[in-house]
């Protein structure tokens, strides 16, 4: 099982000081968080894509390309790459390029984006969000899987004799996760292609996540990619830890109360009960995270959100220390002991190349 962190790249004032980091400071902080993610022994760092303040990450492949050069083992991913408003040709090119630079450590998570004006800014119509995601991904797949593509669709200019370069590393496209909070069409899309399904998980009640994942698993089996429990599932999670759980609650509460997404709404206690948010000791985070398996089954990737709402870099790095030293080693052991042998690990470039090569040997 893979463990990591994902960042939405928000630039939020620290509510305890009133000071917001500059773009430059926050950007450097996220780079430091990513490097530290590898140093403490986690597996994945994923970065969002946004095209409006207060977010800085308009170009995740640039950031991930830099990180590819600064890290050795870390899996680099997105949370998410906008499949609706980016040209799928550019996605094919950018991520194939990044995969070469990272020597196979890249995968990506596609999402539709939920910021209305981004659609018209990029010449699209938000009411076409689902059809854009379906058509653009169908083209993206062909651009990676076929050397020469003739194509015509509804949303972009046709292609005749087009070859997307560079060709995917070792002839294998980066593994794709599809992220959606509430659209069954996107879970259906992930299932149809046998791709991964990632549920953000963090802002919604568990029962909702359960329904989406269960649906994806059933449809994964329906489309013939394996049994439902062999589908590839990733989840988000949101934690704040101190050795002593009362200290965690006391320190995190001002950040929670002012947080951009849910601040000034429910109490921290109510929200922690309704969603996977866990504020407490490392042991509480371990127990809660193991509990996710009760409603989504054995899953392949767990990403934590730890750097939002204005939390200072020093605090975020301390969270990574706790994850690396106390939480993830236990989770690895416990999840591994529970997982049946026929449930696969998350695909990586290496595993996908090996699977392709073994298939070729069989047919030869």
């Amino acid at each position: 099982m893979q463990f990591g962190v994902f960042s939405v790249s928000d630039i939020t004032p620290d509510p305890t000081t009133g000071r917001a980091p500059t773009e430059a400071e926050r950007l450097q902080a996220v780079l430091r968080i990513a490097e530290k993610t590898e140093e403490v022994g986690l597996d994945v760092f994923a970065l969002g894509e946004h095209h409006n303040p207060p977010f800085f990450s308009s170009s995740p492949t640039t950031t991930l390309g830099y990180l590819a050069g600064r890290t050795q083992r870390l899996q680099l991913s997105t949370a998410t790459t906008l499949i609706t408003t980016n040209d799928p040709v550019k996605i094919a090119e950018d991520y194939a390029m990044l995969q070469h630079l990272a020597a196979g450590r890249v995968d990506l998570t596609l999402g539709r984006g939920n910021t209305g004006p981004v659609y018209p800014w990029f010449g699209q119509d938000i009411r076409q969000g689902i059809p854009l995601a379906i058509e653009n991904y169908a083209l993206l797949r062909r651009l990676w899987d076929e050397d020469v593509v003739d194509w015509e669709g509804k949303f972009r200019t046709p292609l005749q004799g087009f070859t997307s370069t560079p060709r995917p590393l070792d002839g294998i496209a980066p593994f794709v996760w599809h992220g959606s909070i509430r659209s069954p069409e996107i879970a259906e899309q992930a299932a149809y292609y046998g791709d991964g399904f990632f549920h953000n998980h963090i802002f919604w009640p568990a029962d909702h996540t359960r329904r989406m994942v269960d649906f994806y698993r059933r449809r994964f089996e329906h489309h013939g990619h394996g049994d439902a429990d062999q589908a590839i599932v990733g989840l988000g999670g949101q934690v704040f830890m101190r050795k002593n759980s009362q200290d965690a609650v006391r320190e995190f509460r001002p950040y929670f109360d002012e947080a951009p997404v849910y601040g000034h709404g429910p109490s921290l206690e109510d929200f922690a009960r309704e969603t996977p948010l866990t504020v407490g000791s490392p042991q509480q985070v371990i127990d809660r995270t193991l509990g996710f398996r009760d409603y989504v089954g054995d899953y392949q990737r767990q990403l934590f959100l730890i750097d939002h709402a204005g939390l200072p870099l020093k605090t975020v790095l301390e969270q990574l220390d706790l994850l690396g030293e106390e939480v993830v080693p236990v989770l690895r052991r416990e999840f591994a002991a529970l997982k049946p042998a026929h449930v696969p690990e998350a695909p990586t470039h290496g595993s996908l190349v090996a699977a392709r090569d073994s298939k070729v040997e069989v047919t030869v």
Partner: protein
Amino acid sequence: METRTLAVVSAGLSTPSSTRLLADRLTDGVVTALRERGVEARPEVIELRDHARDLADHLVTGFPNAALRPVLETVAGADGLVAVTPIFSASYSGLFKTFVDVLDRDALAGTPVLLGATAGTARHQLALDHAMRPLFAYLHATAVPTGVFAASEDWGSSTELTDRITRAAGELADLVAARPTTAAPDPFADPTPFEALLRG
């Protein structure tokens, strides 16, 4: 005897409230009228005041909490709806509108609805038809022709209010009794096949 669920939404704020009083009278009227048509009604009364914080939380977080979820399911699954609001500043109350705002887009599509409103004076009466009725038209609900407005003075005067309640309740009962009970479509049980999505 056939049974139908009747959701009753009351947005009154005081206790006791004349909005709830009107909601109760309308509920009794609909139950009686349905019984005359051979249908047993199961009223489910929802006091929005009890969910004021839940509704505010929903606006902020984007999802209904555990206390609000069953309420939204009751309304979405009802065979008929009685909706009663006080008139504030020439329209339905903010609490009432907040509740409507967090309903799923299709929650009331095709649902027969009886509209009721209360206010201090009869001068607010047209808010029922000029504000509340278009709202339910937007939701694709089927509002019965007779809306029931009760000003303070109506509670002490002639039988006109009772007559309007009886007429409106009969209109709602006609629609509810004639309409088969339908379960809300479940996109997870009956998905659009991917081949159809691909065709666009």
